[in-house]
């Protein structure tokens, strides 16, 4: 069953009648009996068998070792490149995600306003301009908060309910207050916010930061 190397040398042994007898006896574990019979040809075969087997053993060990080394070097190098290619992160982190969202002075005290602006989005080798919107609130201390326009429950677009003074999601009825905190569920997280900065008179909105469970 086991694959035997150097068939030719085995074959040579098997061609000789004495050898055949010896091999047969060996298979039945009767070798000591044969050797004790004092037949010198069997002694010689036994000796030869030991030497040849050792030689075969050693050579096949070396060959097998060399083959394992070669093939594992090749497959190891390839596998590391392939794994890097398939699972690695693209090398360059681009697109900080900041976009000019308009004049600061247009954001007024009081009710939240929905503003739309253009942002470029990088998709592998393509840069696309996309329209995005934000709900902006001018807080008392003159700072601006900008909410992502999607409900944190399942991503429906919510609106400002002027009568109730709440953000109301039409899908499952989640409501949020002016600070984005959940008033009624099923939403469990406050509204997500854009990073905000003001430069001169322009309002810049950055990446959306995911809010934590309340």
């Amino acid at each position, binding site marked *: *069953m*086991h*694959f035997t*190397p*150097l*068939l*030719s040398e085995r074959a040579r042994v098997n061609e000789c009648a004495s050898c055949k007898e010896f091999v047969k006896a060996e298979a039945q574990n009767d070798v000591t009996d044969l050797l004790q019979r004092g037949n010198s040809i069997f002694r010689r075969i036994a000796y030869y068998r030991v030497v040849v087997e050792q030689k075969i053993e050693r*050579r*096949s060990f070396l*060959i*097998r070792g*060399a*083959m394992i080394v*070669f*093939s594992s*070097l*090749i497959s190891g*190098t*390839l596998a590391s*490149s*392939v794994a*890097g*290619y*398939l699972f*690695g*992160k*693209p*090398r*360059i*982190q*681009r*697109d*900080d995600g*900041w976009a*000019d969202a308009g004049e600061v002075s247009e954001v007024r005290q009081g009710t939240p306003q929905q503003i739309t602006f253009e942002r*470029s989005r*990088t998709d*592998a*080798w*393509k*840069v696309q*301009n996309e329209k995005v919107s934000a709900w902006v609130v001018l807080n008392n201390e003159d700072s601006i908060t900008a909410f992502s326009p999607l409900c944190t429950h399942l991503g429906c677009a919510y609106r400002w309910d002027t009568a109730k003074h709440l953000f109301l999601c039409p899908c499952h009825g989640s409501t949020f207050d002016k600070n984005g905190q959940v008033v009624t569920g099923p939403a469990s997280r406050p509204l997500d916010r854009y990073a905000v900065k003001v*430069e*001169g008179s*322009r309002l*810049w909105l950055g990446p959306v930061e995911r809010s934590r469970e309340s």
Partner: protein
Amino acid sequence: MRAAWHAVDSWIDERTGIPSACRRFLAEEIPASAGWAQVFGSVALFLFLLQALTGILLALNYAPTPGDAYRSLTYIVREVAAGRMIHALHHWGSSLMIIVVFLHMAQVFIYSAYRKPREATWMCGVLLLLFTLAFGLTGYLLPWDNRAYWGTVVTTRIMGSIPFAGPMLLRLAGAPDGVGVVTFSRFYSLHTIVLPVAMFGMVGLHVLLVRKHGVTPARVDEPRSQTFYPRQALRDLAAVFVAFVLLFLAAAIIDAPLERIADPTDTSYIPRPEWYFLFLFEILRLLNGPLEILGSVVLPTVAVGLLFALPFLRTRKSEFHFPKRAASVIAASVFAVWGALTMAAVRTSPKPHRPSNVTARELRWAMVAPEEIAGIGYFYSGGCATCHNLLHGEPKFGPTLAASSVRHPKEWLAQHFTHPPGNAAAGHRFSIPQLNALSIFLANVNPEETSTLQEMSPQFIKGAQVYIAGACSSCHKVNGLGGGIGPPLNGLADRRSKAWVSAHFLAPQKLSPGSIMPVYRFAPGEQEAILLYLFSLPE
């Protein structure tokens, strides 16, 4: 452990027969004379499988439409992790595969291994060679850079020059009116669907036939006295290993060429085929005019026909084959002629003529568009370097420009320059020509060119800036681009002296009557700069 392995092995073997099939395969009896000469087939097979692997990997990130093809390839090479390596392996792998396939063929030829009963194996092999070349030819177009585009233009022209069949072949290649989007789709489909299927089938048949007839013994009566495993298997694997190491080193050290995106209007581009087709290119150069048909059709057809006919050559009495020594001489001389033609083609590649007093470095600089040269100057003077690196350096707030494949439209850039994010105070207003130059520079910025741009002397950059600021390109051409009212400025150094041009700036109509060129009065230093720039432009 051993017993457990044995149990698993026999379980699988009883149900699939695969382990014993492998053992039978490894125990194939081969002639005692088989040795290192017989390893090339295995190496070629390995390289083909490697091409298939890297090809599939490239396809995972590659967009097979012109335009997007180039952008996605630059994305693979510059941004995808290990992408440069995979692309280089695929590119250099194709060259190595061509070499190994030819070595394999030479060995079979020298050993007369194509003789009865192995005629079918040989013809199968000739088909495999043609498929391999077709892979190279179709794959050449896929990067969709200038090299790909113009190389394929030449290929399709040759195809079209074939009498009778030419127009039909062109229609089949999707190129009746020149290389276009349909040509691209046809080449892509051939390269990734038709040829791989045909190749895998043919390789299977080839290996099957090799097994059926066995390895050719050195003498007819030589007994088969060794098995494939372990000695020959080790030799094959060692040869595969050597090929892999060579390929890996080449891929790691040499970037696969990727030029600018294909520009069908760039008439100054000198197309060259891949190196293994250069000999044909050279033959076509030698046999021009009415003889062209000889080089483009007759010679290749005769060569392929001879290869197919080789096993059937007969003398009056018996079958004919070349004795080993004669065959070696023939194979060596074919390689020598091939090499000589290739070398000749490389040597006759027209190199731009260099005006006297211009260094090789300046000549290389002058090949870059003036907008880009001026652009890098504005990049530095406009303070862009506070937030951006060009090629490398300490990480900064903005992206590293040459390493990124992101390209923004001009309006975005104009807005970005006046309102840079994060640092409003650094906003910079550029004039329209300056903005133009900067956006052209940014649209083309890439690692190779940036290193050329970065070594330019300030004086040279200033010269290009004066050229841009003076709007010279509305009337004059540089490197084939610009207006046609005035004479092209390339080769000015051979036509005029610096003194003449200086005088001409101040009084154009006096020196060339009828000229509508306005008078230019340059600030100190500007005149020397633009003269340096203009006089470096090669003919």
